[in-house]
């Protein structure tokens, strides 16, 4: 079982780094090549969400990304924002997306959740076990 942990200050510029590391570890873990684009997008969305929450709440604590390949490729992205901010996957439908009154941030959040739910079959969003925050847990099968 190999675990790679990455923690980064909540700045948009670091999300790309998290994506690159996440895909590199996925490839090494044996995730199918044709799933890697989805892994990259999902890790990016989860990290973008965490960064947005930290910035919204003025939190300077790092965002944690933990990748492990014990049996499957599991990625946890942990934020430290109040729980009520982060739980619940509310994808928007086409009418809501085109709604003139929906602002760009809300739209981006809705679209981000739609992408996570659409690309990750095994997805959980839940409170962290220790302290304040939520974790997005995503699992992909590996070929062994």
């Amino acid at each position, binding site marked *: 079982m190999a675990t790679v942990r990455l923690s980064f200050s909540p700045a948009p510029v670091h999300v790309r780094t998290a994506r690159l590391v996440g895909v590199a570890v996925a490839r090494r873990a044996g995730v199918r090549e044709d799933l890697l684009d989805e892994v990259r*997008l999902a890790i*990016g969305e989860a990290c*973008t969400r965490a960064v947005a929450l930290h910035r919204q709440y003025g939190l300077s604590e790092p965002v944690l990304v933990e990748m492990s390949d014990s049996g499957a490729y599991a990625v946890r992205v942990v934020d430290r924002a109040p729980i009520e901010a982060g739980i619940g996957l509310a994808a928007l439908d086409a009418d809501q997306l085109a709604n003139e009154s929906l602002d*760009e*941030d809300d739209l*981006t959040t809705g679209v981000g959740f*739609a*992408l996570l739910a659409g690309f990750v079959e095994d997805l959980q969003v839940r409170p962290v076990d220790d302290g304040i925050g939520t974790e997005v847990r995503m699992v992909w099968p590996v070929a062994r």
Partner: protein
Amino acid sequence: MELSLATRTVGEHTVLEVGGEVDVYTAPRLRERLLELIDGGVRHVVVDLGRVDFLDSTGLGVLVGALKRLRTADGTFALVCDKEPLLKIFRITALDQVFPLHRTVEAATGAGK
């Protein structure tokens, strides 16, 4: 890969060619360029995603923002995309029902007016 942005004119359309990665870090530059064009009086915009390797929800939010802005200004907004991974993103988010999506710039400038 960094974001690249280039504009050209095709008839009455302004085509914005986007390349590289559009994400939470680079999307503000795309938003800024689109606003510059629209505020400068451009009313028919085609965004060519042909050289985009990565597009996330932040980038999609910027594109929807431009679409809405142009609609309220009696303009048009269309996308050019023929890459299956990106098209899948539009389908999953239902944004394929929101944007006029074309396979080629020719189709977008001919049909999008």
